[in-house]
């Protein structure tokens, strides 16, 4: 049994959500970074800061497909998952009382889900 305690042939148990979230946090970070650069280029190419120019960054279409809204919303979903992993890390590191930590984690989920609904509502009303 001792040989299974460490090394490359060790017995691995658990749900593996730790490594999944670790990877997800990095993938979502890259998605957000790329979208940030896209927006930045779009904003720099804007001839003037007017409403039609500004709103076109988020509701432009390609062959009648709402690409602007889709990119913005997919990035926002990435943001929500990224923020969930980060906030959960903060609560796990600093809040030692189990009940309080679970409460804060539940409030974090509610806060982020409300934000996702809010963002969807904004993006699909433009």
């Amino acid at each position, binding site marked *: 049994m001792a040989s299974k305690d460490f090394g490359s042939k060790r017995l691995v148990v658990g749900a593996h959500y730790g490594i999944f979230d670790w990877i997800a946090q990095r993938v979502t970070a890259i998605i957000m970074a790329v979208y940030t650069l896209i927006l930045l280029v779009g904003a720099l190419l804007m001839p003037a800061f007017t409403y039609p120019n500004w709103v076109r960054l988020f509701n432009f279409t390609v062959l009648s497909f709402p690409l602007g809204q889709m990119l913005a919303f997919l990035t926002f979903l990435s943001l929500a998952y990224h923020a969930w992993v*980060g906030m959960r890390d903060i609560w796990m590191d600093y809040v030692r009382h189990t009940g309080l930590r679970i409460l804060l984690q539940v409030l974090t989920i509610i806060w982020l889900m409300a934000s996702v609904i809010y963002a969807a509502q904004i993006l699909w009303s433009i």
Partner: protein
Amino acid sequence: MRMPKAPGVSSSALCLSIPPAAGTKLVTFSEVVMSDSAAKPRPQFRNLTLSQLASYRLPLAGKLSILHRISGLGLFLALPIILLPMFGKSVLSEASFGQFREMVSNPLVKIVLLCLIWAYLHHFCAGVRYLLLDVHVGVEKYAAQKSAASVFVVSLALTLVFGLKLFGVF
């Protein structure tokens, strides 16, 4: 293991058979055994208290790390109460866009926005550094210190640029 018993010495007070010099404290066997745990307790590394936190000197990469957390927390809190309402105002209609521009002309709003801009830029730049560290770029001590300093330089310089733009300098 059994201790060999010296003649004329009781087992409860094991000592050398030569007479002790003046001022030397006689130590019993049980005291010798217990001194490890009683006289010199093992050091304990507990969480820092708030008063210790104020005087705790972090290396630059440590400051970058804690600011990464603080900026992330700030953006998380500002998201549905400041950032999304303002974004909604700016894109919803021509009229709400006008309200958005009027709102941003308030210096107090500008300062709040500048804080959020700094938070985003710091989180972004520090995050890029972490992604590079994850793929083993710049993990050596000197390189890591240098990249931490670069993050502060780039994020603060960009904050300055956005700040000057925000306050209408150019």
